[in-house]
């Protein structure tokens, strides 16, 4: 699984690390203060133009104190009443139509997706989470943006604001009401899709005596008893190879990412085989990630490996048959985390071939466990062949033989719970590519349904943001314009990182005008543009728009970063740390946006 955006531990992210990086909390406070000051100055300048400096200052003071008083005197009963009204309004506006569309999505998956494909779990989860997210966000976007303007247009708001209702209560009531509606839709969609996936994945196979043949035990087997082998019957587009012990029990070989347990049942002198439900088809691995560093071809430490020319710089590469190596440093390993007596190491290495070689054969590499305190103390795990795009699983026993001695991993290699794994490519002119999440120790298997719920929680967080922004826009814009503004925020939020790169000049190929010039002149992205007045003007304009992009990217939530569906789809547990960070990030946007919405509604004349 590719994890491009990685966060430090929650506390470090929130309060700052030892290296002196600014914590998110302080950055937020600074940003909020800057925004407040900028808004006050802009309001004062505008107010001065309209009313004169003294009156403008007086009005700003009154609005700020009034909003503060509104927030402090917010009545839960009134907020609840308005939230209930928003829910009823949503139902009246046929928000449940979203559920009907979702049923159509389920039917499409059931009818048109081939269950015999390599990894149906991935396909189902990917599609369902995408559609759930799309439908819930689209409904929230529309409902939150058009409700208040509709109330203002048809004047029902007159009977609200002439009651002792504060602007904060109107804003919070709308937000809570639409969040409640969205939560209901999300929960129903989640339950429906969970039922659908479990039902679609659930299957078994037939296995009879005729499918099996008795053979001698395989070389290296612990027992010399005969084994019965063969293939199960085809079901859901696949079959499993089985090797049963002399009792007739065993586990099938993996197909479509899962196995089945086979149990022989003797009844009335006859043996039948019962095949259990699929195992390992829908998982939630809990990995322990390490820190990745490199050694270059000369054996010198470096932060990144070789760039093989990919535009996507996510992975770094190490050259084969050289001193180049990738080193993962794992910390805080504890013996009690591996009660089975084995460390399960999973890796997913990419290969960059400078020549074709044996394309049906993996490129050879070597892994070594190294004591980080004393690199001379290491244990070779032997040679492996990189399997691209599949997960390679290695079991490392905690006790093992090392050159005739009995070694204990925690005693000899990781006494403080810290362990290095060094990986090299053995074939000359071939490269291994890797990123930090490409190798990890498997701590445990989490519960898939819990992970699924976490994935929906991430969608919920996005929905809360969309709803809050929608209500904020609706306090001062007409319904359609508010919906468009909300849509622009959502789309812009998916491109926050790109906007930042454009602003800081990190985007290869430059901004819009530079890219256009390059296209017209057929200039490659890395080359320097020819100097001319037109080019200079274009680059200047790019810088100006880049500055705007930086400001906008600071104001918009990074909707892309909130996505966790790839965790669920690829079978990895969504870390609690990540969800906690996402929650605080959402809160960091919701609080100021609610405040802005309250101010904007307070200064608005609802009548014309």
């Amino acid at each position, binding site marked *: 699984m590719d994890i491009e955006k990685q966060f430090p531990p929650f506390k470090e992210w929130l309060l700052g690390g030892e290296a002196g990086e600014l914590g998110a909390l302080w950055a937020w406070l600074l940003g909020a203060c800057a925004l407040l000051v900028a808004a006050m100055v802009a309001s004062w300048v505008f107010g001065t133009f309209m009313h004169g400096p003294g009156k403008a200052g007086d009005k700003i003071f009154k609005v700020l104190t009034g909003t503060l008083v509104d927030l402090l005197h917010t009545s839960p009963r009134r907020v609840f009443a308005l939230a209930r009204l928003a829910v*009823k309004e949503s139902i009246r506006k046929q928000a449940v139509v979203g559920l009907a569309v979702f049923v159509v999505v389920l039917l499409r998956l059931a009818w048109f997706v081939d269950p015999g494909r390599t990894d149906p779990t991935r396909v189902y989860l990917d599609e369902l989470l995408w559609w759930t997210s799309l439908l819930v966000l689209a409904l929230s976007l529309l409902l939150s943006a058009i409700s208040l303007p509709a109330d203002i247009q048809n*004047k*029902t708001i007159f009977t609200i604001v002439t009651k002792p209702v504060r602007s904060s209560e109107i804003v919070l009531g709308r937000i809570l009401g639409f969040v409640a509606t969205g939560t209901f839709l999300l929960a129903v969609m989640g339950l429906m899709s969970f039922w659908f996936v479990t039902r679609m994945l659930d299957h078994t196979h037939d296995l009879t005596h005729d499918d099996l043949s008795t053979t001698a035990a395989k070389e290296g087997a612990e027992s010399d008893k005969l084994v019965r082998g063969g293939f199960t019957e085809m079901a859901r587009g696949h079959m499993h190879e089985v090797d049963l012990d002399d009792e007739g029990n065993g586990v099938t070989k993996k197909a479509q990412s899962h196995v089945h347990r086979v149990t022989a049942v003797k009844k009335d002198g006859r043996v039948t085989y019962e095949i259990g439900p699929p195992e390992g088809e829908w998982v939630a691995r809990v990995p322990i990630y390490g820190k990745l560093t490199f050694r270059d071809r000369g054996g010198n430490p470096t932060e990144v490996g070789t760039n093989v020319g990919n535009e996507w710089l996510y992975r770094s590469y190490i050259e084969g048959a050289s001193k180049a190596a990738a080193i993962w440093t794992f910390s805080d390993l504890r013996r009690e985390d591996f009660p089975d007596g084995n460390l399960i190491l999973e890796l997913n290495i990419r290969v960059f071939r400078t020549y074709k070689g044996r394309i049906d054969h993996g490129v050879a590499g070597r892994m070594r466990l190294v004591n980080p305190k004393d690199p001379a103390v290491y244990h070779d795990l032997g040679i492996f062949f990189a399997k691209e795009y599949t997960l390679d699983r290695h079991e490392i026993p905690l006790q093992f033989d090392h050159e005739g001695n009995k070694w204990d991993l925690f005693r000899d290699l990781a006494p403080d719970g810290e362990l290095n794994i060094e990986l090299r490519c053995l074939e000359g002119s071939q490269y291994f590519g890797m990123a930090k999440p490409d190798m990890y120790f498997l701590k445990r298997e989490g519960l898939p349904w819990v992970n699924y719920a976490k994935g929906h929680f991430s969608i919920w967080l996005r929905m809360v943001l969309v709803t809050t922004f929608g209500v904020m826009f609706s306090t001062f814009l007409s319904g359609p314009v508010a919906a468009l503004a909300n849509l622009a925020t959502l789309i812009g939020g998916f491109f926050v990182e790109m906007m930042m790169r454009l602003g800081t000049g990190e985007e290869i190929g430059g901004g819009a005008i530079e890219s256009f010039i390059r296209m017209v002149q057929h200039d490659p992205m890395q080359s320097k543009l020819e100097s001319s007045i037109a080019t200079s003007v274009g680059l200047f304009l790019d810088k100006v728009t880049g500055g705007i992009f930086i400001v906008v990217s600071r104001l918009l939530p990074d909707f892309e970063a909130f996505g966790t569906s790839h965790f669920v789809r690829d079978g990895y547990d969504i870390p609690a740390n990540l969800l906690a960070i996402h929650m605080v990030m959402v809160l960091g946007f919701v609080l100021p946006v609610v405040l802005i919405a309250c101010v904007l509604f307070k200064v608005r004349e609802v009548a014309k």
Partner: protein
Amino acid sequence: MQSQAVVTAPPGATVPTDVVIETRNLSKIYRDFWGRQKVRALKALDLEIRRGEIFGLLGPNGSGKTTTIKLLLGLLFPTSGQALVFGKDASEVTKNERIGYLPEETYLYRFLNAEETLDFYGRLFDMPAAMRRQRAARLIEDVGLGWAKRRQLKEYSKGMARRIGLAQALINDPELIVLDEPTTGLDPIGCREMKDLILNLRAQGKTVLMCSHLLADVQDVCDRIAILHQGDLKELGRVDSLLKVRGETAIRASGLSEAAQQEIRDVIARHQGQLLSMDNPTTTLEELFLTIVRDSEARPGRRSASLSDGRS
């Protein structure tokens, strides 16, 4: 709406003088998107409405009466001047706890039924559930909608919608009731009941501010009126005083022969007739209203001469 007994203030009773609504130099200019002046809707309005009176705002379309009401309710913000309700600025939310408002049309949520509507507005007044239930049940009966309380408002006729609108305006047992065209959409019986109800509210010591195009309704119930035209206050005073025709005397007598009518006072005395009243004759409010509007259009910007008569 069920018919209610008309309770009028006892003759000669003194009206409490504490001011419920006060406007000082209240002006409103509507501007376009660019801040340019579009309409000067209200010009320096000075007004006082006292506790316990029924005050009517009159004026042709565009005269500024609805703007005045919206300014008093905080739906609009004044361009200059001040609007005070119960001594608080009109933009102050807490004043609304003592106000009931019936808009010109029934701007209610059509997907709610009568019970849900009153329960919702009761919640907005932070009322506990028991009180909401009790008041909603009583008001629904009072406005005669008990038979339709479970029907969604979108199924209501205009008259029924006005009734439930009135019920929501009274859910908090307000001290000040603002009624915008209260009899619009009501049939003659409904109009009569509405007027009875307004008088009943005054009898309970409540203050009523209403605006209406139906001059007969205003004449029937209002203690004092203000007539606005093109944003200017043209007339202000007690209805009975405003309708008096100065410089003329009308005598109303009974039991007199034809001959006795020739010499009024002496003959009445000589013939032992009973003098019932001797006063200035009154015109109708409609006549007064039209005179003021015509006068205002002929001499724009000048206040009606009758205002300086000290009749308010």
